[in-house]
């Protein structure tokens, strides 16, 4: 589905909801609720991590406030609308109010559920409620896992079927839809490359993601298991020039009369595209162990099938939690890594070796372009979105009431080759470094 289809789908679901409201106004039951997280995080580094965290501290990584209305038109037909205020996804400077959910639901029988409109894919264990910090004990859901997909929201349709055999409850969700969102690419160097739409600092590229897939969830007593497969087609809006299609190796090479291939240029993809096809597979479990221990683990793999890019990643985490009265301390280990050849390409483009390895036919003709070449290589490296990081975290949640939680966490993230979660300083690199982050938050629902 494209943007036009998205708009049509949203308009259709809006019209359906409006019609239902007008037809059954006298019988409508509405349940209002709200949620919020007031969070603070501070690191020991001067550069930004996860957009906002640095040594000055920020409330912007985790803070979020939302309202939800569950509307019941009949026993079988309802609608859910959820709006939230959170840091903008299209700029680093402001906050934005967005409609996270707006769907109509039809439950023709106890074990069937059909939903149309804007909703969320059950890609991760906590996908659906990831904005509601009160529903889980982690101070921050591991970025290494919860970034595998650019968005878990979509506008489309889903069908759920539930079975209740003696071994528990199985729910199969099948969905298809599209969403328009932004990809954030941080250009660290203060340069403007001719012909490039990339600007120094944070760039927000509009993308359209078509996704289809399924999630199978097995609930056995209090334990939960989930597996999902999703196919995605991610297209960069033609009105927002794609980093894939501009400032290519061919463009750079055109400036190099007589230049022959070097390690960096030869590693560049030969054909560039503004559309990325990918398959995302996730597995997750939450298991209750003796002595009130819980083991939570998730694994995610996003495979790009038609391009070489850093977002071709493997990620996951494993966490051990223990419930002690109102306290739930935990320790977790998380990791995300781009595929090896993407990391190699990143290193080749990011280092000056790309230039020095070039064999120029007529050196004097290209020496004037050396700085431009190096800068453009680094811009390309930034645009590759490479990931190589691991995090160990120690934290706890404290349940104030059944609807309020306090959380605290210390986390050490080790950046290997590079990580696009880091806004590296101009002219520099952030590799083989540790980032310590201290987080506190107050989470509530009402």
């Amino acid at each position, binding site marked *: 589905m494209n943007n036009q289809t998205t708009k049509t789908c949203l308009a259709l679901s809006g019209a359906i909801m409006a019609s239902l409201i007008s037809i059954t106004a006298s019988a409508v039951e509405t349940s209002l609720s709200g*949620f919020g997280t007031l969070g603070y995080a501070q690191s020991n580094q001067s550069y930004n991590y996860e957009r906002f965290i640095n040594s000055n501290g920020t409330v912007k990584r985790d803070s979020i406030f939302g309202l939800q209305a569950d509307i019941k038109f009949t026993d079988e037909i309802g609608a859910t609308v959820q709006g939230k205020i959170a840091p903008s996804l299209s700029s680093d400077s402001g906050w934005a109010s967005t409609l996270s959910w707006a769907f109509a639901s039809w439950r023709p029988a106890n074990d069937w559920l059909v939903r149309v409109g804007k909703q969320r894919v059950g890609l991760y264990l906590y996908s659906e409620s990831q904005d509601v910090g009160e529903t889980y004990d982690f101070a921050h859901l591991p970025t290494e896992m919860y970034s595998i997909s650019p968005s878990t929201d979509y506008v489309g349709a889903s069908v759920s079927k539930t079975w209740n055999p003696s071994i528990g409850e199985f729910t199969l969700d099948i969905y298809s839809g599209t969403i328009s969102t932004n990809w954030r690419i941080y250009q660290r160097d203060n340069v403007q490359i001719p012909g490039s739409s990339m600007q120094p600092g944070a760039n927000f590229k509009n993308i359209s993601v078509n996704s289809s897939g399924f999630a199978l969830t097995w609930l056995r007593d209090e334990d939960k298991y989930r597996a999902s497969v999703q196919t995605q087609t991610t297209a960069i809006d033609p009105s927002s020039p794609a980093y894939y299609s501009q400032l290519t190796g061919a463009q750079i090479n055109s400036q190099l009369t007589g230049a022959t291939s070097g390690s960096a240029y030869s590693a560049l993809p030969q054909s560039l595209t503004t559309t990325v096809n990918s398959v995302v597979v996730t597995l997750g479990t939450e298991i209750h162990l003796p002595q009130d221990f819980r083991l939570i683990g998730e694994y995610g793999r996003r495979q790009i099938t038609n391009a070489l890019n850093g977002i071709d990643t493997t990620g996951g985490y494993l966490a051990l939690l223990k419930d002690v009265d109102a306290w739930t301390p935990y320790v977790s280990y998380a990791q995300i890594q781009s595929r090896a050849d993407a990391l190699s390409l990143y290193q080749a483009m990011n280092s000056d070796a790309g230039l020095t390895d070039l064999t120029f036919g007529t050196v004097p003709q290209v020496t004037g372009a050396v700085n431009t070449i190096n800068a453009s290589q680094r811009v390309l490296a930034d645009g590759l979105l490479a990931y190589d990081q691991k995090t160990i975290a120690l934290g706890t949640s404290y349940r104030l009431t059944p609807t309020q939680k306090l959380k605290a966490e210390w986390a050490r993230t080790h950046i290997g080759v590079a990580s696009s979660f880091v806004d590296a300083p101009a002219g520099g690199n952030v590799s083989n470094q540790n980032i310590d982050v201290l987080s506190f938050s107050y989470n509530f629902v009402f």
Partner: protein
Amino acid sequence: MKTTFKVVSLAASLLFAQAHAGEIVVIGNSNVPKMDSVTIQKIYTGKVISVSGISITPVGVKSGTTARNTFLQGFLNQDEEKYTAYWTVRRYIGKGAPPAELSSDAEVINYVQSTPGAVGYIDEADLKPGMNVIARSKGGSQSGLGGVQDFIGNLQVKPNSEYSVLSISAI
């Protein structure tokens, strides 16, 4: 057969031992059929919305009341904290809102009696003649059907088996 008799005897003993505990009863509108505790549990956790073709609308009483706490413990095997946490997650995964909460048993009775498909729970002491009692908590002083079925159910005996038939006749 000897084993059968032992099971039935044990069930009957347990039933009579708890017969006067003062328990919670689940009442329904006149169009709502009798149910077992598993179905009640599924209704109050949002997993069942219709029974025998009848759309069910559950209501409860506000948190902190004895009736609610006893109901949660007896039918859902949960406390207030777990029940609230369950519905918080369920609401925010987009699968509906918890049953409406009324302020007293009297309100529950009025709502249930005037709303087709409605079910609610009240203290047994508030029962009045003519009310449609559709289920009782496991230890309640009901006719014995539900309690014994629950007990036998825990032994994983199939409904309508020899045990069930004998247990009914034994009460």
